């Protein structure tokens, strides 16, 4: 309970902070539109040559793109800024400030930053998803919606765990600031359903970088492709990765010696 209140307070401060820079909202809107535009151009180029890709047609892939944009917004609003701050503080030896506070270290380092304007992507993703679903003439079933939201939450947690594990390597490798770039590159693979990738890459995108669970699986839930086994698999992986990432962080913290105090 205490943890929740703490997280909520940080969220409030983050939002207040963002309100100081309102012009950034317009810049964010423009960036989102540019990204959406190039995404749609890519989709149109592919479907000017073919009518379906790996068993998904144009509208269904639009739904995948909607989830991709939505999840990207969540990542850049709440996950990535925290992890990048953690990375910088490990590098500069300033993590002591967080570690000496009387709260769970993992909780604290995970809630300190929040980029409100990135939620423009969340809204845009939802709109794209809505347009796609309208075109699919899709009737909303309770299970599909539940599957979608639960898959979305698990996907976000998985991405968070993945980021945390990668960030924890900064305890040993020090300069890992290129990781944001690495992640963005790999996350871009989620624009397409993982089914179209060769086996080795599909495996990597499912278990190493959980892009498949973050984007494809929620989209599968909405387009009636998700079966119960996959859902259970996602749940199991989420739990496993959460435990593993927490352990890795704890292990990394042991080899951390501050430089600021």
């Amino acid at each position: 309970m205490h943890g929740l209140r703490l997280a909520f307070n940080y969220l409030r401060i983050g939002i207040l902070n963002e309100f100081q820079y309102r012009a950034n909202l317009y810049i964010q809107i423009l960036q989102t539109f540019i990204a959406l535009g190039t995404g749609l151009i890519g989709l149109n180029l592919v479907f000017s040559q073919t009518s379906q890709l790996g068993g998904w047609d144009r509208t269904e892939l639009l739904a995948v793109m909607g989830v991709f944009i939505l999840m990207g917004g969540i990542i850049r609003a709440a996950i990535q800024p925290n992890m990048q701050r953690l990375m910088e503080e490990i590098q500069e030896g300033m993590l002591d400030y967080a570690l000496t506070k009387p709260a769970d270290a993992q909780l604290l380092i995970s809630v300190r930053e929040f980029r409100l304007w990135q939620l423009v992507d969340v809204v845009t993703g939802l709109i794209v998803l809505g347009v796609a679903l309208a075109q699919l003439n899709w009737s909303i079933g309770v299970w599909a919606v539940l599957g979608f939201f639960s898959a979305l939450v698990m996907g976000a947690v998985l991405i968070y765990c993945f980021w945390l594990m990668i960030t924890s390597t900064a305890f040993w490798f020090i300069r890992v600031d290129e990781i944001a770039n690495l992640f963005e590159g790999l996350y871009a693979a989620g624009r397409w359903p993982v089914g179209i990738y060769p086996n080795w890459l599909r495996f990597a995108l499912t278990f190493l970088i959980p892009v498949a669970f973050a984007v494809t699986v929620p989209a599968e839930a909405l387009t009636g492709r998700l079966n119960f086994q996959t859902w259970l698999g996602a749940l199991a992986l989420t739990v496993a990765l959460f435990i593993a990432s927490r352990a890795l962080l704890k292990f990394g913290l042991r080899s951390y010696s501050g430089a600021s105090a």
Partner: protein
Amino acid sequence: MKRYFDYYRSAMKLSVLEQWQYPVANYFYMVGMIAEPVIYLVVWSAVANQQGGMVGGYTPGAFAAYYIVWTLVRNMNITFTPYGWEHRIRNGRLSTSLMRPIHPLNWDIAYFMGWKVVVIFLWLPLAFGLSLVFKPELNPTLLEGVVFFFAIWLAFLVRTLMLFLLGMVTFWTTRVSALFELFFAAELILSGRLVPLALMPVWVQELAWFFPFRWTFGFPIEALIGQMSTGDLFIGLGMQLVWILFGVLVVNIVWKFAVRRFSAVGG
């Protein structure tokens, strides 16, 4: 002349030494970058296979060649970004380089040229791995190889000059990220980075002639994978030289006005 030569040699050596210390960071960066062409490659190979083995004149093997060469060209395209410029000007760092008796552009060019040497070295095993997986159809002639070698370095110069020019906008206003984003979006579409230009609608291909983008990206790739006639190869190199001349000229003119507007914050 000798002064410049020594300067470049020292700056390149410095950056080689500096970048060699961070192979992990450099590799993270490169692997992240390789994800992008691999995605395009897989998607377009799937499309080609569905269309009976070829789309827009490209077979899966030709796509593999295109996107593997892409990775090197993309690396050669990396240079000091306009965002870095924004940073430099905002925190007043620029004043140090203004004190030097040599145009600061030289440092950027030399430093990144040195970095390129490291990057090409690190790129080789990645290219080898990608070739094993995707089996590119790549049989360049000697001429194509030579043109490619010059084209990638000229491409680096063209892009450096263009981004330098774009970065200089920050002398007048520091809220330019929107402008940069537009520039990069146009580049993505018109350069051949997203897809080979041959797959674009004809009007986009014609439009691309009037921008520097295709000469920094699509041209070197197409030169090596054998998509161009001998005449086109030399036209391409010529266009690169034209853009370099244009870039040097405009950078010098704008620079004169720009530095007058600069007032440093600290040194």
